[in-house]
């Protein structure tokens, strides 16, 4: 077709242990909004990174405006006319809007930067987009939405032909989304090719022309948006194949005591009025999309981030948790999604990491009883089948799965009764995943209560006894495993937006 501006054919990309992209095809036409959908980890972001030269592809071909291209850096892609509006905005907070838009290619007059011209050009861009932003405003003073619009303006100023939006509405309010859509429609009318990555079904239905669905690094199919239903897309996203047997019934006895009760927890923008209960020996799955506020809930609960309001009860008694120290004392353990930053002390040995949270138990007088420490570490290495030559090995030499086991051991040694697993298998290869799953199930059997945050639906369905679904900082669904399906969870994970849209239509804006 002559109006096809960009074609990606047979793109293949392997990361150590993961086949991130498996012969993926994708194309964009002039004047269309093409949605790219898929669960977290389906490969959307990797595909876009390959396109914009942030990562190199292993094989495949990219044809842009009739020429085969290979971008080695984001700069080259930008020059050619492919620009990405990032999910995490890349702006220099201390500079003004115009200065940010023209960073790296400032117009000069004599020795000085021609700020007046930059402001004028920026104002022109904004007029073109029908946005009301003062080019002289400092970037950090703008709302996220306006910062994003500046990114769009920056993209256009690069003389872009293809603009990629990566979850652009994740942090926007209702009115702002409307404004963004108006801009996108405007851009479409002007003939730009637009790639739109989002999880939000109703948005996809509203503004996109075609939808391409990816799953597990594979291309699943492309649909014309107007000719398909929400359900069609969801079923393509989750697939009919279930990779592992999901759990069919809640294994937690009905009378199990409540060990943790959270009431009306509020913390920042992403934890709003969260209340739930956790029973002894239960695995409570927290499902939702990235940015739904699950990690934030966990961190607020653990005392790692300040709480605005809300109460936490442990064994029916109100717990004063203001720091991780309090949480650990109360018997909570948190396994972060980012093991390297928040989990293990990588340079240090398996033994030292194992006793990190409970070193006071390994003291003989004022000295650390290293023999006992090594003994306990070795016991846990054996019990958890951690693969390490010895307990003196620095944790950084271990694989992801084994690092995770060391962190699990840390909380077992500290006698944590409530363990919060945040994305327990992120960055862990398939075989080791299985082991972690078995381990978690075993922990629950021995009476530990587990909160598991996961963005992989299969993982949620396989392990949880009960599932809580979050969206935009609120709990939007709670179901027993017996009633849960992938479709139901997905629906709940996107429900908030639909409800708000209706509410928004009535109120005009949301607080």
């Amino acid at each position, binding site marked *: 077709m002559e109006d096809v501006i960009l074609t990606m054919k047979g793109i293949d990309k392997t990361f150590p242990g993961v086949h991130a992209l498996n012969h993926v095809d994708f194309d964009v036409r002039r004047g269309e909004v093409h949605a790219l959908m898929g669960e977290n980890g389906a490969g959307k972001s990797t595909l876009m990174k390959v396109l914009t030269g942030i990562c190199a592809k292993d094989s495949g071909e990219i044809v842009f405006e009739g020429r085969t291209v290979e971008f080695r*850096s*984001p*700069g080259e892609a*930008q020059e050619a006319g492919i620009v990405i509006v990032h999910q995490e905005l*890349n*702006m*220099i*907070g*201390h*500079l003004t809007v115009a*200065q940010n838009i023209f*960073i*790296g290619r*400032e117009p*000069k007059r004599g*020795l*000085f*930067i021609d*700020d007046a011209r930059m402001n004028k050009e920026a104002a022109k861009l904004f007029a073109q987009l029908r946005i009301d932003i003062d080019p002289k405003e400092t970037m950090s003073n703008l709302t996220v939405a306006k910062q994003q619009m500046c990114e769009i303006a920056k993209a256009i100023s690069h003389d872009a032909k293809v603009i990629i939006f990566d979850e652009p509405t994740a942090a926007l309010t209702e009115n702002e989304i409307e404004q963004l859509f108006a801009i996108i429609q405007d851009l479409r009318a002007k003939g730009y090719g637009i790639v739109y990555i989002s999880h939000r079904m109703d948005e996809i239905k509203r503004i996109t022309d075609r939808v391409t669905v990816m799953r597990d690094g594979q291309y699943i199919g492309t649909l014309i948006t107007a000719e398909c239903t929400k359900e069609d897309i969801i079923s393509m996203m989750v697939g009919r194949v279930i990779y592992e047997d999901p759990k069919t019934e809640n294994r937690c006895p009905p009378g199990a005591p409540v060990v943790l009760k959270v009431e009306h927890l509020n913390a920042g923008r992403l934890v709003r009025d969260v209340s739930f209960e956790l029973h002894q020996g239960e695995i409570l799955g927290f499902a939702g999309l990235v940015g739904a506020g699950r990690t934030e809930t966990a961190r607020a609960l653990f005392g790692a981030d300040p709480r605005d309001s809300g109460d936490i009860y442990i064994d029916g008694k109100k717990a004063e948790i203001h720091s991780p120290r309090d949480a650990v004392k109360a018997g909570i353990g948190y396994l972060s999604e980012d093991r390297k930053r928040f989990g293990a002390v990588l340079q240090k040995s398996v033994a030292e990491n194992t006793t990190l949270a409970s070193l006071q138990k390994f003291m003989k007088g004022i000295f650390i009883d290293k023999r006992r420490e090594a003994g306990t570490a070795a016991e846990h290495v054996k019990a958890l089948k951690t693969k390490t030559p010895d307990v003196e090995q620095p944790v950084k030499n271990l694989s992801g799965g084994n690092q995770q086991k060391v962190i699990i051991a840390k909380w077992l040694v500290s006698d944590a009764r409530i363990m919060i697993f945040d994305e327990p298998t992120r960055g862990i290869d398939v075989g080791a995943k299985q082991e972690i799953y078995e381990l978690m199930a075993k922990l629950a059997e021995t009476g530990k209560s587990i909160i598991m945050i996961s963005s992989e639906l299969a993982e949620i369905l396989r392990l949880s006894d009960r599932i809580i679904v979050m969206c935009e900082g609120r709990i939007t669904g709670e179901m027993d495993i017996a009633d849960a399906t992938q479709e139901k969870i997905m629906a709940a994970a996107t429900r908030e937006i639909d409800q708000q849209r209706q509410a928004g239509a009535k109120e005009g804006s949301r607080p």
Partner: protein
Amino acid sequence: MENTMIKRKAARIAFIRSNTFQRLLLIAVLILLYAFFCAASPAFRRYTTLAYICNNMYYTLLLAIGVTFPIITGGTDLSMGTGLICYSLIGSYLMRMCGWPLWGAILATVLMGAAMGTVNGFGVAKLNIPPFIMTLGSMMFCRGMGSILTGGMSGTWPNYLEPGAGFRKIFRLVITADSGQRIPIPLGMVWMVLLAVIMTAVLNHTRTGRYIIGIGSGREALKLSGVNVVKWNMIAYIICGLFTGLAAVAYAGTFSNITPGEGAGFELNAIGAAIIGGTSMTGGSGSVFGAFLGVLLISLLQVGLPFIGLNANWQLLVTGCILMGAVTIDRLRKP
């Protein structure tokens, strides 16, 4: 109604946190302090004291303007103080022992500063050495080097009676009034203001300044925009080195004797001044004008304290406390 109240309150908090507020406060403090010293000591009120304050602050001022740039990138430069002494010692050595002309010595002094700045910049930007360690190394290096090259002797630059003394007039012009009274005019202040204006323009209106701010504020974003971050980071240190060289000339031009081993501590006054003036220790924002005001405060204290009977040790104590206080305020201003 309530909404506008909240907005107004937010605006007020934003203003209190803003650099403008800090600078206004600083000006107020300066005026009050000056008034206080004037009230406390009749001798302080004289015009010559004012001229003396000016004369005393040129080198600190130049250092503070220079160090503003590395601080904005999130770094620092500790080598300025001993570097200053080292360069002016070598300058005097070149003049006295090697027979260089005055202009040659001045040029060499400034270039030595720039060279050291380049070395610092290379270590920090290219080799990723923590700035405070890299510049600590060059601080010690300068401390040793100045003495080694000059054999541990004090250095002097042409004084008022020698040929070439004209260069002192750059900083301090003495005119004889009709009554026969000699009135010193702190001419150097004019150049300082001029330099401050130029460097403000560099910081705010050239690519150099823009990228230096960018490095401190959003290094990754800058890199993604295709800017050579290493180069501009290095340039911040080169600017600082260049100003240290200029400060060395100013020091030589205002003081008669340059003693090897001196100079440690000058950089702390300069860094303290920059931070008081609203340049953030964490990088990304800063102001040459603010640094100027900060130096005024420190110099006012340095000169004023002896007038109320507090000796040099109190100055040290006060400048130490100012440095700590400034960083604490900087920390507290950032939410």
